[in-house]
């Protein structure tokens, strides 16, 4: 599943399904549903409300009121009516007035109010999710409508006792008994007094952002330099929730036996994260997904060793973390600007799109990389001696931390392994590195 191939549907479909599902799961009263996508009239607002949204986004219509003529040139800095441009000459041509936008929203509200009165609703809250008042207009006799069944969208969700169709309960604050707080107490001596701590905790997928509170404490006391290596050395056993090790600071070492949800190591800031499957499991690690989507998003530094396959959008916007992984989904290393990724298995499609820095080393024995890589900004080469040493040391560390069978076998046949490694290098980044190297050399020659 990729959002790329499933976007662009009318909001009615997703909204109705989200609302119905949330009501069924008895979660609707705890959420706010907002919808947008070409909402322009009170009628649009009314339909959105009846299908389950209590909030709506109106963007294009408001822009048009300001003078937007839908040039679709917002990204080119040439908006001829001065709406979406930084060019001072073009900005002079902007004629929009804030009052007119206010006016439009008043009109929208009036329009909605009129429809609400017709339907007998006093408030938005009592109107939300009342899909049963919607009727299908059968008159447009278009051939495309012939085979269309709108019933699933118009299904009136049935409330459980005490539940509501709209957001009616506040979110509870984070439980003080949560793992994050326990960890914070456990790590206090390491942060305050410099006494290293080592421990073991069970973990469940309701434990989210484990390690972030501790990292915040470290950052407040020690700034970005963090703590000495392995000051806080924790082993978790179980299934980690979202954002395991998010923003984790230097000095932290988290070892996870089990698996983890999405956003693993998001914004990683110096810590070392290790994950390997439950020791009792019988599956082959490098053929199974062990961490979810968007791992190491925006990571800035640190290390990670993943004894298994990662989901999609791995290492997107990574700017400094060094990671080893045994396979990944689509859009890996997209917009990466720094760091290293050693990938020991298959990559998904659109790999390295917009990658402008850092290096990815891909083990590609089946020669699939070129078919799956987005070549707009990167090029391939065989690893040079320096790179070979780097790959080897990272894989060796991977074996040390995770005992990866795959990595072991690769090391065993190192010569043939190396033949299948490709360096994915952003073209401009490479040029910058070479320039730097030759400058340093020149300096050494003149000063040395």
């Amino acid at each position: 599943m990729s959002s790329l191939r499933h976007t662009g549907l009318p909001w009615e479909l997703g909204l109705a399904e989200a609302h119905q599902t949330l009501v069924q799961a008895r979660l609707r009263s705890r959420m706010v549903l907002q919808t947008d996508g070409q909402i322009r009239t009170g009628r649009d607002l009314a339909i959105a409300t009846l299908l389950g949204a209590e909030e709506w986004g109106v963007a294009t219509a408001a822009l048009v009121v300001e003078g937007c003529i839908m040039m679709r040139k917002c990204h080119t800095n040439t908006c001829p009516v001065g709406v979406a441009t930084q060019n001072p000459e073009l900005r002079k041509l902007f004629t929009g007035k804030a009052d007119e936008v206010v006016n439009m929203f008043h009109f929208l509200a009036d329009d909605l109010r009129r429809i609400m009165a017709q339907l007998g609703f006093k408030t938005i809250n009592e109107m939300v999710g009342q899909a049963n008042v919607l009727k299908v207009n059968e008159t447009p006799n278009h051939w495309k409508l012939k085979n269309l069944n709108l019933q699933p969208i118009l299904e009136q969700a049935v409330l459980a006792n005490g539940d509501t169709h709209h957001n009616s309960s506040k979110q509870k604050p984070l439980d003080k008994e949560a793992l994050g707080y326990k960890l914070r107490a456990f790590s206090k001596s390491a942060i305050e007094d410099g006494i290293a701590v080592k421990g073991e905790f069970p973990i469940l997928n309701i434990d989210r952002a484990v390690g972030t509170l501790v990292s915040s404490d470290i950052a407040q006391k020690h700034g970005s330099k963090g703590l000495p290596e392995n000051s806080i050395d924790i082993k978790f056993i179980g299934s980690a929730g979202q954002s395991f090790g998010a923003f984790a600071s230097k000095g932290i070492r988290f070892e996870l036996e089990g698996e983890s949800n999405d956003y693993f190591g998001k914004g990683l800031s110096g810590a070392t994260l290790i994950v390997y499957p439950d020791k009792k499991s019988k599956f082959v690690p490098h053929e199974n997904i062990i961490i979810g989507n968007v791992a190491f998003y925006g990571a800035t530094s640190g290390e990670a060793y993943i004894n298994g396959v990662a989901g999609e959008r791995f290492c997107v916007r990574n700017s400094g973390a060094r990671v080893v992984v045994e396979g990944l989904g689509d859009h890996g290393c997209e917009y990466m600007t720094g760091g290293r990724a050693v990938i020991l298995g298959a990559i998904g499609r659109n790999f390295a799109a917009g990658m402008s820095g850092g290096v990815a080393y891909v083990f590609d024995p089946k020669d699939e990389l070129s078919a799956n890589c987005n070549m707009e900004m990167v090029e391939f080469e065989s690893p040079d001696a320096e790179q070979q040493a780097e790959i080897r040391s990272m894989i060796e560390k991977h074996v040390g931390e995770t005992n990866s069978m795959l990595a072991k076998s690769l090391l065993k046949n190192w010569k043939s392994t190396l033949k299948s490694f490709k360096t994915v290098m952003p073209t401009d980044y490479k040029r910058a590195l070479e320039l730097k190297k030759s400058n340093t050399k020149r300096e050494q020659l003149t000063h040395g």
Partner: protein
Amino acid sequence: MGKPTGFLEFGRELPANRDPKSRIEDSKEIQLKFDAEKLNKQAARCMDCGVPFCHNGCPLGNNIPEFNDAVYEEDWKEAAEVLFSTNNFPEFTGRICPAPCEASCVLGINKPPVTIEQIEKEIAEKAFELGLVQPNIPRNRTGKKVAVIGSGPAGLAAAAQLNSVGHTVNVYERSDRIGGLLTYGIPDFKLEKRIVERRIKHMRQEGIVFKTNCDIGENVKTADIMDQYDAVVVCTGSTIPRDLPVPGRELDGVHFAMDFLTQENQRVAGDKIKPQDVVVATDKHVLVIGGGDTGSDCVGTSNRHKAKTVTQIELLEKPQLERGEKDPWPLWPVVLRTSSSHQEGCERQWAMNTMAFHGMEGKVSSVELVEVEWVVAKNGRQKMAEVENSAKIIPCDLALLAIGFLHPQHTGLIAQLGLELDNRGNVLCENYRTSNEKVFAAGDARRGQSLVVWAISEGREAARSVDEFLMGTSVLESKDRSLLRV
């Protein structure tokens, strides 16, 4: 898009016209050649809008940003392909269209719009020059026969379209030359007749048969046409001129504009006019009544005749110089327009009503005018009121009525076919089909007096309707259905 910042770098520029003093000595086209480099810059001004309003401004739905881009890239083949895909005769519209596309050009919101019409003309001429315009001879003939009555732009467009899908098309024209108003309405200085002839020659090569001097219902029996053809397309134009029933109207020297203009085109073409029919403006005080395009053509022609004075009057008030609240972009702006004919010399007066023609010995010698003002009446409509003591008499020995056309000629063809008319007297149609199942109508005869570009559009749309009638389905392009993916 060729140049994203073109509109910021280059201003609007059109080719220069010949000097008014020398150009009134002949009837040749007045525009000078345009530099290729300059044209390229003009094409670069197109912004390739996300929502190109020009598509909608143009009655033909021309894919304007695409051909502009092709011109910028100097890909004339692509440019011609895009242009001809929606417009059969850009060599006409590139010269004489008032360019509603430019009125709706997005650049026109705060800058002078792209010179779309000029670019269109250049593409069309370049396409002929490079041999890109080849007769489009259909591979197969359907065996269906279609008669097109009237050879103006609507008839020609319908004929070209219908022929292209293999129908056998005969075009009937009551006059001695093909082209309708293209030939006998628009003066040569705006559209040289060699341009029309070049197109007719192509259409003949495509297999279309043109029959001149055939006035259906007069010298050709309507019943014969109905018997011989599977479908008939009425493109007879809106030929009945609006009259001015004031005292002295019957005087010699008071003429409908079209009598004057048609005769001039015949003269330029080398025809001899019978002495008793000659209407010329030479050494006369000419009064052109009506401030529209036809009036303007009368002004230009009078100047070429060396009239003593040329005065043009208009009933409505002088329009604003710029758009106002009633006509914001992208609507058609009701603003003061100065044509090339006006630049050649003419006195223009607005808010002026004609009260009477005075004359001696049956010949008009002066005209009585009165100033009017327009006020909003109780029903919200504009109402005309005479300004007291504003009557004046000006000398006039030739008065030309250019105050519009009412509807097509009802006698003859339309009456004999018994076609239903709408409340303005035009042929009533549904999807271009008249009340007679195998008779269709297009152009001014259906929509009332309008532009050449609308006539071409009507001809194309009607052709599709005819094709659907004959074949059940149609692959012909129409405004909403382009076969060319651009």
